[in-house]
């Protein structure tokens, strides 16, 4: 899909007339429907993927078709599904009833800011479902239908659900500002679950979910490939630092099982983060193992249905039990930590076969994870730094001036904000915060979360990522920020694309793809570590980039 040149999109987002720039659409939202065209939808799930998950109605179809080949009686299936979910989720019931449409959420959504599409205002995204809910379940629906803005469940409405349930990244920014805490993520999750009931889903979610189920990870890396990939990283570490690191796989009796998103062992720039983990664990002599069976921290089930989330997540405890580890350490990832922090214990606990996590190096007991028994790598690393267990030379990151991007889920569904910042304070000489409206609980999504980081909707992604890119650009111009640090594997992939688009390289490095490359916090940690037995005057960073050491500076 061709994406507009950055100059064009820059002009468009600020000047095209839409509800964000101040133009009121002529038609009421109940009566206006956006057409599907190449570029504004993610490709539907392939029939074999739908079949693999035993979801209903596998078929070849396209959103641009008039006929979506929905099953007979699909309206009833949806309404029954809605009724069932109203009975299972109090959040849904309450959120359907109590919105006063005050509009506080309207300009908080990155999709709305980037597209100006009224239905990307969280309040209207939820109204897409609410209008049907009221039509079916509200008192007085017969007489007040028009006044309540109700709509019957029609094909047009269903198509609209598909469009806007996949233009929401469940980032929860709106729920921070809502006076009643209405969380659009809950609404989007329900919409997606309902759509799956009639065989409407996207391939970019169902395929990684299928891979994860079968091979253990989204990337579909089979056990030997997974090990081999990490082997390459071991080799690179040897080349750069002269140090041998010793990861193990599926090793019974290890103290700790380490699980990270598979993207970290597969693609740039995630692999540098993985190298950071490897160096760190070697540095402290951690007794840990990877698992090829539970080789995925992420969980695309979260973007599909709660049942799928549970099924995929269940591997972690199953593997921890099989290997007989004491507790689980989790790598840097956003939605992974939403699942681990808010869902795992409820869905697949109690993990009574594990021990309360205790750092074998510092003796710190992680009471905040005493039931789930899973600790975030940033919590673990910050504790090591606090206890002076790491030999760090921040100057090794002197060529980097980072800013920190809070990922949606750690920030708004976990409250992990200051641990990564504490680490940053100790591994780089200097770093800067972005605009206060764009960080911490008010952070902006990368624009491509919840399984939307697929190529065919690139323009949409770049628009949705604009608020984040804008804030980065601001600190780039003001402070010379040249590194976007984060603790999320999806961010490492999606922010890279975002930075390459909105902040193309202006320097004279022919290899550079952007002015602000993206790096995981653990990469910065690994790069700053002074390893035992490392080569003298190490002059390369983990990306084989030249280091600006004290010596070269003179």
């Amino acid at each position, binding site marked *: 899909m061709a994406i507009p040149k950055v100059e064009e999109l820059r002009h468009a987002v*600020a000047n095209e007339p839409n509800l964000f720039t101040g133009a009121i659409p002529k038609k009421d939202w109940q009566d206006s429907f956006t057409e599907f065209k190449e570029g504004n939808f993610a490709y539907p799930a392939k029939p074999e993927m739908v079949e*693999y998950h035993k979801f209903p109605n596998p078929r070849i179809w396209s959103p641009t078709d008039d006929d979506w080949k929905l099953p007979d009686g699909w309206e009833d299936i949806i309404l029954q599904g809605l009724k069932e979910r109203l009975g299972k989720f109090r959040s849904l019931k*309450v959120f359907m009833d109590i919105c006063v449409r005050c509009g506080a959420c309207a300009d908080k959504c990155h999709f709305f800011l980037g597209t100006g599409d009224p239905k990307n205002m969280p309040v209207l995204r939820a109204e897409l479902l609410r209008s049907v809910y009221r039509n079916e379940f509200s008192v007085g629906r017969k007489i007040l239908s028009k006044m309540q803005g109700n709509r019957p469940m029609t094909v047009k409405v269903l198509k609209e659900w598909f469009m806007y349930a996949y233009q929401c990244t469940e980032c929860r920014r709106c729920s*921070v500002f809502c006076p009643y805490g209405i969380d659009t993520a809950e609404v989007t999750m329900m919409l997606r679950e309902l759509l799956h009931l009639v065989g409407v889903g996207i391939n970019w979610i169902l395929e990684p979910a299928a891979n994860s189920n079968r091979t253990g990870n989204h990337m579909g890396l089979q*056990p030997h490939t997974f090990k081999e990939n990490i082997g390459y990283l071991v080799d690179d570490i040897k080349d750069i630092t002269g140090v041998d690191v010793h990861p193990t796989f599926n090793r019974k009796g290890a103290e700790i099982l380490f699980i990270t998103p598979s993207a970290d062992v597969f693609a740039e720039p995630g692999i540098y983060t993985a190298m950071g983990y490897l160096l760190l664990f070697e540095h402290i002599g951690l007794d840990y193992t990877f698992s090829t069976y539970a080789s995925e921290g992420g969980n695309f089930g979260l973007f599909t249905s709660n049942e799928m989330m549970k099924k995929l997540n269940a591997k972690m405890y199953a593997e921890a039990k099989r290997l007989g580890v004491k507790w689980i350490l989790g790598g840097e990832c956003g939605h992974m930590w939403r699942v681990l922090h808010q869902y795992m214990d409820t869905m697949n606990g109690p993990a009574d076969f594990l021990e309360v996590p205790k750092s074998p190096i510092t003796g710190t007991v992680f009471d905040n994870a005493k039931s789930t028994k899973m600790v975030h790598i940033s919590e673990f690393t910050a504790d090591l730094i606090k206890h002076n267990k790491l030999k760090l030379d921040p100057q090794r990151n002197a060529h980097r001036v980072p800013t920190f991007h809070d990922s949606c889920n750690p920030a708004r569904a976990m409250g992990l904000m200051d641990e990564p910042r504490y680490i940053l304070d100790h591994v780089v000489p200097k770093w800067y915060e972005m605009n206060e409206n764009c960080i911490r609980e008010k952070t902006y999504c990368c624009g491509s979360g919840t399984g939307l980081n697929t190529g065919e909707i690139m323009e949409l992604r770049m628009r949705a990522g604009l608020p984040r890119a804008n804030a980065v650009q601001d600190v780039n111009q003001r402070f010379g920020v040249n590194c976007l640090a984060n603790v999320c594997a999806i961010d490492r992939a999606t922010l890279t694309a975002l930075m390459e688009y909105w902040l193309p390289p202006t320097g004279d490095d022919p290899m550079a793809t952007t002015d602000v490359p993206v790096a995981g916090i653990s990469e910065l940690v690994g790069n700053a570590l002074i390893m035992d037995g490392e080569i003298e005057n190490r002059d390369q960073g983990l990306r084989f980039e030249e280091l600006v050491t004290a010596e070269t500076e003179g």
Partner: protein
Amino acid sequence: MKVLRPIIAVIALIVAGGVLGMSQGTQMLVGVILPSIAFLVFIVGIIRKVVDWSKSPVPFKIPTTCGQAKSLSFIKEDRFDCPNSKSDVIVRMILEIFLFRSLFRNTNAGVKSGDLPKLHYGPSLWLWLFGIMFHYTFLVIVLRHLRLFTEPVLPGIGLLEYFDGFVQVGAPVLYQSDLIFMGAITALFIRRLIMPQIRYISLDTDYFPLLLIFSIGATGMLMRHYFRVDVTGIKELTMGIVTLNWTNPGTIHPIFFIHVTLVSTLMIYFPFSKLTHAAGIFFSPTRNMANDSRATRHINPWNDPNIKPHSYADYEDEFRQFMVDADIPVEKELPPAPAAEKKEEVTE
């Protein structure tokens, strides 16, 4: 159109209340029976709604964390925006309910055109301010009305009236709460009309309660300051309602019956509309739960124990050969005969 229908509806209610309030015969109906029924509908309706919500479980612990969580000892936790204990949650809820904490965060985003689009954010406290002014003055007004429903008048009500009228303008004295209330409700209404985004999302059912409440306030003030209705007569009637000893003194101006019709409509409308946010805020799982889900296991009553992961045994069966070749430990050894490579291309 969306604002027209509610205007017509409210005018119709005013006319109906006025007409019925003009003759002695129907005054009883609209002044006594209607509000009695309305009050019952209000109470039963709210309870029904709350019970309905409670029938659905909260399957997962999903607080929205708006600050640093409790973690390591040297990381400063933000107790009330990211509560970790019951008491912290209570404080968070109090801040939310009494100070509209979340709305206080409100910002206003805009985009500046130019060579580069530049997003900017300004504080936007108007909604918070009008909202809080409206709700608190509404509370004061409701409490002040208790003088008409208690005999002897509840202690404290007199004091409240005294402070509410302490500028001593006019006779009967003007209450500040009335002015703030009317100002705030007007502002909330105008906001819906003139702000493009808010106008676009507004439904009839958003304008209707605002217009209804505005009319309630307006008729109330007219009664006090313009018509100067027979207050002792009104108290006779209202006391009759609450002591179930219905009476109509017959000396009350029709404006009173308009006021009562509108108030009754509000009470009846309340439990079936968005106004249930007053009760719903207590039920919001993103606000009323502690962020301790890794420390304390939350139970989901419908958690399905039959959902199992793709088992390790099946996984190893599929990949055993590769695992052995790559020196990855396995549970079962390879069968003596070389196994044929199974290829099930699911990926790529």
